[in-house]
């Protein structure tokens, strides 16, 4: 006897990297460390996604410096996602990157049966545009408000207040990476542990907390003697 109803499908989960490609990322190997960290994380991300076949993970990336541009524009199934190296140079137009994400989180193209999207911002400096207005707009949209937002600060000059504004959740700290090992660890955590939490979440009470998905604690930071940024 045939099954009633239409086509069955797993729930889509959109994972978006927002990568600072400003001029300061050229120093001390920061941009190459970021490239290496994401490349290393990709197979682990695919493995984490495999562990929950009921969520279909799609990955994209935005780079921002002078303005913002899609680095990977099409939602790409995680098992087919490949990372092409980013280059650095220019300003830090975080607001423009956030605005581009906001457009993609509207319904449509999002659907109401999606899982909460995961947004991971990686930055080493101070935003040079009106990022606050852009973040307010993001948080005013239904999916923007419900997204899981993570921020990784590269080096001591990163603007923690801006990153906290992006996270907008007192339960999730800014992750401080002062060396490439720490960056690799946080990138891996965001793309596996956080991904798993978002892909199989339990029901959450409306307005129970700032976030829609409980996020597990991040790994401890590495020893200060290794700090180079």
């Amino acid at each position, binding site marked *: *006897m045939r099954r009633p*109803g*239409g086509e069955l*499908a797993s729930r889509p989960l959109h994972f978006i990297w927002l990568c600072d490609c400003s001029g300061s990322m050229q120093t001390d190997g920061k941009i190459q460390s970021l490239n290496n960290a994401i490349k290393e994380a990709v197979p682990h991300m695919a493995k984490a996604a495999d562990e929950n076949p*009921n969520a279909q993970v799609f990955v994209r990336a935005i780079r921002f410096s002078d303005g913002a541009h899609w680095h990977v524009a099409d939602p790409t199934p995680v098992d087919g996602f490949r990372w092409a190296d980013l280059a650095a140079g220019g300003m830090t137009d975080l607001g423009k990157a956030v605005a581009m994400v906001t457009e993609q989180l509207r319904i449509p193209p999002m659907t109401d049966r999606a899982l909460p999207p995961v947004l991971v911002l990686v930055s080493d400096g101070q935003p040079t545009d009106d990022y606050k207005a852009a973040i307010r707009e993001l948080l005013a949209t239904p*999916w923007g408000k*419900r997204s899981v937002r993570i921020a990784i600060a590269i080096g001591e000059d990163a603007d923690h207040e801006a990153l906290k504004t992006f996270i907008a959740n007192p339960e999730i700290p800014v992750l401080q990476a002062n060396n490439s090992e720490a960056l690799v660890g946080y990138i891996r955590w965001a793309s596996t542990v956080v991904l798993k939490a978002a892909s199989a979440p339990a*029901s959450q*009470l409306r307005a129970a907390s700032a976030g829609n998905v409980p996020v597990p604690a991040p790994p401890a930071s590495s020893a200060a003697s290794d700090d180079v940024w």
Partner: protein
Amino acid sequence: MSGSGWRTIGASVRGASHVRRNQPNQDALLLGEGAAAVADGHGSATCFRSDIGAAIAVDVATVVMLEETVPPGPVLAERWRTRVEEHMAAHPDPDRELTLRAYGSTALAVRVTGDELRCLQIGDGDILLVDGSGAVTRQFCRNEILGVETESLCMRDAAAAVHYAATPVANTELVMLSTDGYANSFRDDEGFRRVASDLLAMIREDGLDTVAASLPLWLAEASGLGSGDDITVALLVREPVQEPEPEHPQEADGDA
């Protein structure tokens, strides 16, 4: 179950992701005469007794519908709270703090009496009505619910979050209640709504008992290929099952 001119059937399956994680089914189902209730326990780490909360929810919701209290929200919320507090007192936990939230659950219930159809709902899930032509309507539109959010019986303002409607049965032939794991298993809402009209067609063709026997398999397949969540469905079907209404009325033959 049969009576009051309506038969009720249902099934509840543990979600594919819960099987992988060795977690129990946190949905609940109760079938009565001309009535049915389903509930979805939240299942998070803080809602560690939500399977019990869901079982209490379907029990209380069914009784509230039988008593015909209008509006049912305050009575439903208060009785659920009382039953949960009784359970807490009878089953203390030395290692964890017991709060209402530990038992958090949704609740959906339907009762048909005479010419009236009564529905209540708090939290996610769906109540779909199918008429004689196969047209499907959703009883409560829940546009404000998104992602994994839900309202819950454990909320302080739970009474105000209960949706209730009493409408004429009219030409409703089938009512389907389901927890959100089912709708979340379909690529789109149209595909999910088709479940209700397809089920009516299948019941007309193959009989209710055949559909009842296949329901658990269909729900397990939906969870496996779809949401991975627990799925619970209850159907109320008018007896005897009517032949489908024609989609276009026949024109009378004119005289030559």
